[in-house]
Each structure stands twice: as structure tokens, then as C-alpha cells.
């Protein structure tokens, strides 16, 4: 303001020297020039100050929230810079261009600074959030508890898949069978000892028919799934390639190695030109798939009424690799199934021409495989439904 007073004093002085009109004109012009210079400097100064203030506020904001307040204070509807820009219209003509240009530049700069700081702060905040949300990765996971398949079904599936892969289908049949399907049509002699009350569960025959031996009956719990083979051969023309998984029953008291109810899988092939070599090759393939490529198989001649020739199949012991150990009782072999070529008499029962077709059949106990593959020490665990056992598989 000192300048203005000096100018006024100078004006009075000049008025005194010059004529009023003339001096006034000169002085007014001069005043305008000087004031213009002063105003420009003042505006410049003010903008600089404002700019510094705003930039300090931006860099000084510690949170995104603070930063947003800065944005509102400066560029918001009622913000300083907005107000400043709004006031340009009221400036003298000469100053407008300059002030407008400067202020706009400043707005661009402020916006950029806001963006930059925002990015910076976002990154900080994310890092802080991430830091804060770290967990102890050794804590137990939040498991969705899936249910489990029963070991016996698991093995049954495994066996079925192997045979499905070489062209077999799956067949099923009743568990309460007639003597015909369980014994007679399978060529078991009428007085075969396996039909005894000590081995077979007999069911009260509600048709009123009487059995030849007291206490026995024409109806029984199947002791083998072989009856289904007969049913398949009755219903289907060769070629037949089926496996038959299912529950069977034998009159054994439950103990660690016996159950009165267990699971069997039988296979049946009837086709032209089927050989004993085919039977061996099939079972060899199966054992390698089931127990491992390094396992060997051997067939031992045996006797079953429904096959001829008949054999039992051993797989080399997986524990001692066939050397002989406690697990295999020193033999190096583990018995896993019975098999043989379908007896022509069985073909006779179902009306298949034994001159045209040959076939083989085999059967294995799933519980036995469970013991061999999973070392289940007590078969009774398989029917107890103990969750702690079931959840293991």
C-alpha cells in the first residue's frame, strides 16, 4: 500500500506542478500502469502461495480419506482453486488472460498430483491391508468333509474298471437263490458236502416244498455269485463277457479272518475259440493291473464242480517279492482266486452248444483282496461302520 500512497502523494505533487487536467490524465495513465504491474505481481504471488499450500496438503495427506478432503477443498464445488478460477471473470480485462492461464496450469498440476498421491496411498494401504491379513498357514484348513467310499466298494469298482476296459459288462442277481442256480445248474452233485448245513445258510421255503435233507431247503443265501452266470447264459447268447460282483453268504462265525457275509466278484466268458491260455492271460493281465506290473501269477490245478479244468490262481507276495515270508506263510505266493474252463455240463443246463463255444469263469473274494492290498487286520471292521475306519479310505 505504500506504493499507492506514494503514488497519491506524487499525484498531488504533480498536480501542483502541472495543470490539473493534464496532470490528472498523465497521472491516471501512470497510475494504471503501475497498478497493473503491482496487481500482476500480487496475483502471481498469491497463486504461488496457493499452489504451495495445495501441494503441501497433497503430499501431507496420509490417507486416501485425507487426500479426498484435499481434493474437495481445492477442486470441489466450493474449493479454493475452483473459487479462484470462478473469480477470473471479475478481473480486469488485461489480467484475465494471464491469471486464467496460470490458474488452469495449476489445476492440471494439482489434479496430476492428486492422482499420483492417490496411487501412492492406495499402494500403501493395500500393502498395509495385506500385512494385517497374513495368517498362520500352519493352522488347520477349513475342509469340506466329503464322504468316502467303502473299501470293499472301492476295490469292487477298481476290479470292475479293469474288466470294463477289456470289454466286460457288469451283471447282477438275487442274493437269496434257489438250489438250482446256486448248486445244481453249476454241476454241484446233489450231495456235495458244500451243501451242508455247516456251510450254507438255508432259508425257509415258503412254497411248502420239502428238502431232501432235514434242515436244508431249496432256497438259500447264495454261497457264490455263480448263479448269476447261469442266469446270464440263460438270457444272453454268446459272446458273453461279464463280471458279477455281489454279496455272498457262508456259515462262518465272524472272526478276524471270516465273515458270514462277504463280497465276491466272478467273471464269465463264453465265445468261440476261448482257450485255457486266454484264461491265464486274462487273469495275468488283471493281477498286474490290480497289484502291480512286477507281480507274477501262477495257476494251480484244483477242483470246482462248474469248471473243468479248474485251477486256483496265486499272485506273488508283494511283501517278500516271492521269497517267502510270514505274510505268505513262507510260500512266496498269495492265493487270490479260483478259475477254470466252463464245464460242458453247465453249458448243457443253459442250452449253449459246447462243441461250438468254450468259455472260462473265475471268482475272487473282495475281502481277501482288501486284506492283501490294505492289510486290514480284522474283517469285522468292514461291517461295523466305525467312522474312524470308514474315513480312512
Amino acid at each position: 500500500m505504500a506504493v499507492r500512497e506514494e503514488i497519491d502523494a506524487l499525484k498531488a505533487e504533480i498536480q501542483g506542478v502541472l495543470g490539473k487536467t493534464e496532470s490528472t490524465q498523465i497521472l491516471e495513465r501512470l497510475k494504471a500502469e503501475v497498478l497493473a504491474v503491482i496487481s500482476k505481481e500480487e496475483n502471481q504471488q498469491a497463486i504461488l502461495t496457493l499452489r504451495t499450500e495445495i501441494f503441501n496438503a497433497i503430499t501431507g495427506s496420509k490417507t486416501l480419506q485425507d487426500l479426498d478432503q484435499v481434493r474437495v477443498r481445492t477442486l470441489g464445488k466450493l474449493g479454493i482453486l475452483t473459487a479462484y478460477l470462478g473469480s477470473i471473470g471479475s478481473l480486469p480485462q488485461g489480467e484475465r488472460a494471464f491469471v486464467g492461464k496460470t490458474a488452469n496450469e495449476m489445476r492440471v498440476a494439482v489434479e496430476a498430483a492428486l492422482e499420483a498421491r492417490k496411487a501412492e496411498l492406495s499402494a500403501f494401504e493395500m500393502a498395509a491391508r495385506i500385512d494385517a491379513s497374513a495368517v498362520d498357514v500352519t493352522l488347520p484348513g477349513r475342509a469340506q468333509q466329503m464322504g468316502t467310499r467303502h473299501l470293499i466298494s472301492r476295490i469292487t469298482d477298481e476290479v470292475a474298471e479293469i474288466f470294463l476296459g477289456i470289454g466286460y459288462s457288469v451283471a447282477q442277481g438275487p442274493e437269496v437263490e434257489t438250489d438250482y442256480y446256486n448248486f445244481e445248474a453249476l454241476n454241484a452233485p446233489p450231495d456235495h458236502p458244500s451243501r451242508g448245513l455247516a456251510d450254507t445258510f438255508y432259508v425257509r421255503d415258503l412254497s411248502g416244498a420239502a428238502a431232501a435233507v432235514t434242515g436244508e431247503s431249496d432256497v438259500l443265501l447264495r454261497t457264490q455269485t455263480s448263479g448269476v452266470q447261469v442266469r446270464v447264459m440263460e438270457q444272453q447268447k454268446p459272446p458273453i463277457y461279464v463280471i458279477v460282483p455281489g454279496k455272498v453268504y457262508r456259515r462262518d462265525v465272524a472272526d478276524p479272518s471270516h465273515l458270514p457275509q462277504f463280497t465276491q466278484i466272478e467273471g464269465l466268458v463264453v465265445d468261440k475259440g476261448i482257450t485255457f491260455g486266454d484264461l491265464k492271460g486274462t487273469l495275468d493281465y488283471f493281477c498286474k493291473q490290480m497289484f502291480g506290473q512286477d507281480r507274477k501269477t501262477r495257476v494251480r490245478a484244483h477242483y470246482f464242480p462248474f469248471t473243468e479244468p479248474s485251477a486256483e490262481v496265486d499272485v506273488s507276495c508283494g511283501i517278500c517279492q516271492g521269497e517267502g515270508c510270514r505274510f505268505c506263510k513262507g510260500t512266496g505266493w498269495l492265493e487270490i482266486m479260483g478259475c477254470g474252463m466252463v464245464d460242458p455240463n453247465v453249458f448243457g443246463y443253459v442250452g449253449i452248444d459246447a462243441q461250438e463255444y468254450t468259455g472260462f469263469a473265475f471268482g475272487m473274494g473282495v475281502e481277501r483282496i482288501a486284506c492283501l492290498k490294505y492289510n486290514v487286520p480284522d474283517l469285522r471292521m468292514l461291517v461295523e461302520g466305525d467312522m474312524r475306519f470308514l474315513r480312512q479310505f
Partner: protein
Amino acid sequence: MKVSLKWLKEYVALPDDVKALCDRLDLTGTGVEAVEKTGAAFDKIVTGRIAEKAAHPDSDHLWVTKVDVGEANLGEDGTPQPLQIVCGAQNFDAGDHVAVALVGAVLPGGAQIKKSKLRGVTSCGMNCSERELGLGAEHDGIMILPAGAPVGLPFADYMQMGDVVLDLEITPNRPDCLSMVGMAREIGALYNEDVTWPSHELVEVGEAASDYVTVEVGEAARCPRYTARVIKGATVGPSPDWLAERVTAAGARPINNVVDVTNYILFLFGQPLHAFDFDSLKSPDGKAHIVVRPAEEGERFTTLDGEERSLKGDMTVIATPERAVALAGVMGGQDSEVTEATTTILLEAATFSPAHTSRTSRNLGLISESSMRYERGVDDNPIGFNTDFAAALLAEVSGGEVCSGIVDVWPVKTEPVNLLFHLERFNAMVGADIPREFVCETLARLGCEVGEALGEPESAGEPGRGLHGKQAEVLRVVAPTFRPDLEREIDLFEEVLRIYGMDRVEPTLPGGRGRIGVRSVFEQALATVHASLRASGLNETMTYSFAEPGELGRLRMAADEMGCAVELINPINADQSVMRQSIIPGLLKSVAYNQSHGVKNIQLYEVGAVFFGAEGKKQPKEKQKVAGLFAGAMGEVGWNTQPAGFDFFDGKGALENLMRELAVPRLRFKALESAEAPHLQPGRAAALWSGGSLLGWVGELHPLALEAFDAVAPVVAFELDLAALVKAARPARDYIDIPVFPAVTMDVALVVDEDVTHERLLQCMVGAGGSLLEQVSLFDVYRDEQRVGQGKKSMAYALVYRAADRTLTSAEADKAHERIINKVKGATGAEVRGS
């Protein structure tokens, strides 16, 4: 069957390697169950010779000996070294041959020989006395062996006490192998060795057996041959050592010379014999009149074992006119057995029908060495030879005389079977090229007669040659009568393959055309059932198909429509004496088992058959069911979880998942009244329907049902019929377009009476919704007497409206929403809450 190799060696040469013999037997169908070495008691006891004898420096009665045991003791350089043994006996000199127990030997009395010091002198073994070896009472000094006795031989071998007894599993088709000669023939075939048949020399004296005995066979089918011989002047007493030893090796207990001879012949030839005390059979005329006849129904008879048995008409007895004296083929009678007082013996050698013997044995629960052989088949042809052999032996060991002749009734003679053996067919069946010579040789060794087939087209050229000069492809084979299992060509095939070695056949895979491995529709659906239930957290289990009678009643399950329980005639336990009609009781037992073992999270399911009988029907109806249950709480207490107790909706949710997976259409859960499902808790039970077919039920089991099974609530269970389920299932769900235009969601809370179900509200809304209503979901059920009212509940739904072809305006949505609300109000008396 127990087979002493020492005994067997008399008839056929055996390989030295017992293990190899066992393997060969195993592979050819004779299972070796056990290998028992007798004479094992003399393990580590060898023959020796006293090389030096010196006085003990610190004792006046002990001797320090150096005993040469040959190879049984080797020094560090590998050459035989004598053992230093301190000995207290006074009856020996240097140079004597003795029995030496080596360090580690366990004497028959149980004493173990250790390396020790006797008054400062090391002793490495023991020179044994007879008593120490368990051979006698002699204990005055050590056992001195003859001067020429070898040195370093196992003592058991020296004494010829070493034997190997094989316990063989003879398959039921091989009665011939239930004898020493049968096994000799089998092994002869395996090793291509000749068999030396045992022989005897029978001397008969004056009187004819027929002067003593008459035999009458009532039903030939029950007794194809019955023979009797008479031995007079016998003295019943202990058997000679060799006989007792043989009988013992075969697994029997020596009884007396007469019984032991019958057992010996049984083991040797597989021919059961019975020796009667002749005097106790005599009729007043002084003769024994043997009648083989059916037993009378209810006839009482006391067998040798002292047990009185009630007989049936299907059983056969050996009788005199007065009474039954033996149960044919199974066991003799107590009051006609041979005793010390017996002097005249009636020796029975017969054959009885396998079927009758088997049934008799099974009906009485009485299995004997005889019945075991008769039910598999005893050949009637060699009986004459066998009984002669037996009689000669009886005379020899009892000092008696054999009356001349044999009383022989032989109504049915077994004839050899004539068979053909097509070589080409055989090799085609086996998948190998087994030479003709091998086939002929093997069959002959097994006792068949083998020749060229005559009159066969192949051999129409020169004899034994085919038309093109080839050897005939067909053999004529006569199967021996002791092989009842050789009835058909295929049986011969098996014999040759068995002896050839199944292991020698090249493994191949069938090359059949037209085979397809495929799972049936049922199997595929079943796999989905399993997968879905497991995904719902259920664990598959397997329980017994057996059930306890009255179990359904305890479960409170209505059994009226299920038919009757299938009863076992011969159950193992009373609580497993019928077949199950529902899987739930079995599962509940597992729940109780788990709960008693502290398991709190129990999720089980089972797929299996249930059984329903019907009067007049032979075979019961079997239905496949899938049942499951949730007991206790979901999950375990964890650092970040709390277990949630199971309720109705866990069961329902699992079924909803399952139905979704099976794409079962028109699914409906319909509340079950307590009368319809008494085993379920009323108000928490529902039947599951697909359209008009009932699939099963789901609900919380009734507290009383749980109590009966010692299970603790909550237990949510379900049981579905698999056939109905698979029938209702569709192979796939339909594709529905994913909406392009936005939806409008509007919420409404409906205050209704308690008895208005969600299902009812849903029906009203869906019914009135028209095409714009896309989805209705219940998001809150709220009860508050003050705000909602007594006996009322507030059901809050979110209704989603959408048009498939345009953006819905709010006016359209409002209109549809209003229509729905009005409909629901009108139909159920609902009030809109907050309006």
C-alpha cells in the same frame, strides 16, 4: 489227508527235495497244507565217537571227552573238529560210538543244551542216555551205539525215525487220492515213475466163511457190494510197532491190532473196513445173518462213540435179524465192536452209496474217515483184493486164522467208462501243442487204458494212421473204475493238462469280436447316487444283511406292507436269524457303535438289498435300497468352526442334491403324519415323491426308536427305493438360456398361520406368477407373538421377475407382484407384513 513219505516211498520213488515235491503237488491239484517233520525232536542230535577220554582235573567222577561228530562240527578252517564235552557217565571208553546233543539241541524232556563250564572245563554238548533221548528208562550211563555206527549223522536218520508227513488237501473229486496207493499212482504220473503195488500172502484154512455168515442186501442202490470174511482164533492186543507207527503217521490213534489193521487198510487202499465181534452178531443158529437195510424212521442206535442217535429212513444200517449193528458207511455200533475178549472177527468190506452216506453224515453231524471216503466214492472192484490183504494182515498180527472164502453180495458192479480223446480238440481248448506221446503216457500212468480209436473217420486208412498217413487224432481211453470223476472227454483233458503243467501254457487274451464293456443304465445311475451322497458328506458303509426278528418293531417301522421276514433255517445267532427288511436298523447299530466310541459326527449310507417273503412263494422279493443317516453334528469342533447339530434339513438337502444329480423331475416332499411313519418324529418327516411315484422317506428318527437302538438324537435318516429312483431319473437336465435382460427383485414378507406350509405358499406364488416370475426364494422365517401374532409366522420371500425378450419396466413388475400377493392373500389368508 496225512501222507508219510517214509511209507509212500515203499510204493514209488520220491524226489529228494521235499519242497520241490510239495510245489509239484500244489500245482497239480493236491494242496499241501502242512509239512510236518517227525523226528524233529532229535534236531541237533547226531551220532559221534569218543575220540579221547581224560579225567577231569578237578573232579573224581567227571570225564573230559573229545567227541568226533564229523561234519556236524567244523572248525574255522572248514574241517571237522571234535567237540570237547564234559561227561559224568562211567560206562564208556574211548572209541565208543554215542549219541551227541549239540549246543542248541532241545532234548525230548525239554532241557536245552548250552555251552557251559563244568568245574572250570568248557563243555560243548552232551553225550546222551536213552532216558535223556526219550527212548527208554536206561539212565545208568550214556547210550552206546554199535561199533560200526556212522559218525556225524543226524540221530533221527541213524535210528530211521525221521519222517516227513504231508498234510494234503484232496479235492472232493479225487477219492482215489485218499489212500497211500492212490497218492503213489498220482506221484508216479507226476514224475513218470512206476508204482510198486503192495502184496500179501493169504493163507486160508478149512472152514468156509459162508458157514459163519450170510449177507443180504435190501436195496442195491444203497449198497453196490457187501463182503464178509471171518478170522478165527484171534488175540486182540496191542499192534506191532510198525503198524502202530503207520497208523499214527496217518493221523489215527492206535487202538488194538484189529482196529489198527482196518485203519491201515483204509489209509493204504482207501477202503473202509469194519471189524465186528462175531459173537455179538450171532443168531441162535450160531451164524451171523447180516442184512443191509434202510433204517426205520426213528430207530434208535448207539454208535461207537457212545452216542445214541435217532435214525431216518434215508439212512442205511447193517443189521442182524435182531438189531442194527452199524450205521452203513459212517460208524459201527457200540455193542458189536471188537474188544479184548473177541476171538472171532467178522470183517466187513463194502461200498455204500455216496449220496446216502453224505446225507446221513450231514443229518447226524457225524463225519468219519469212512463216511468221508464213501461220500466221495469207493470203488467196488478191488474189494476182493483189499479184504484178502486185510484178512492176511489180521491173521498175521492177531495170530488168528482166516476162514476160506468170502461172502460176497455184489448187486451193482461198476464198469469202466469208455471215452474218446480228440487230440486236436484238446489242444484247441488248452491253447497249446501238447504232444500225443505225452497224452498217452500220462493217461496210462493215471490208470487209463489208451489205444487208437477204431472206426473213427481219421483212422480209416491203415490202422493207427489217418487217411493222409497222419497218426489218428482220436484216442480210445478206458477210464479206471477208481476214478469216478473221469466220466467225459473234458475230464481227461483236465488230467493231461494238470500233469503237463498249467504253468507251461502260454498266456493270451481272448480275441473275440463283438464284445463291449459297458455299464448298464442302472449301474450308471447307481454311480451317480454314490457320488452325490459322498459329496453330501455321507460315508458309505456295509452292514449285515441279517437282522433280528422284531427289529422293525423296535424301530417302530410299519412292516405291514413289507411282506414277511425271510427266515434262516440255520442262523449262526438268534439276532441274525432273518434277512433285513430295511437298512436303517443296521445303520442305527453303527450309530450306537460310533457314539459309544466317542464319535460325534456320524454320516453313513449304504446301498443294498432288503428282503420280503410271501407265503407260497419260493424265492423272496429283493429290493435294492439306498439308506443313509446323519447323527450328531456336522463337522468337528475346530479353531474356526463350531459343529452344527444335524436336523431334518440336512437329510432333505442331501436328497435334494441327489435328485438334482439324477435330474428327477416333479420332486415333492410331502409331510408324513405320525400314523404313516411312526418311526419318524412327527412334524419332521416327509415322503419323497417324483410326480406320482413314491421314492422313499426322510426325517428325524423318533426318540423312542432311537432309544430302542441305544442311539442318541438327533438322527436324521432316509431310505429310498433304488429301482423307483433310477426309473424316475432322467439321463440329463435341459439347457435353459442364460438371461440377457435384467431382472427386478421384489421382497415380500407374508404373515400366515403356522399350518400354512412353504410348499403351499410357493404353489400360490408360482401359480399366479405367470411368465414373468422367474424365481421365488425363501430368505427368512420369523416368529414373534408381539409383532407377528400368536400361531403365526412371517415368511419372507424374494421374488425375481424377468422377461426373456426385453428389459422389464417397474410398472410391469409391480403389476405382476401385486397379482401374486393378492392371490396368496386370497388363498392362504396371508397378510403382508409392514404394509
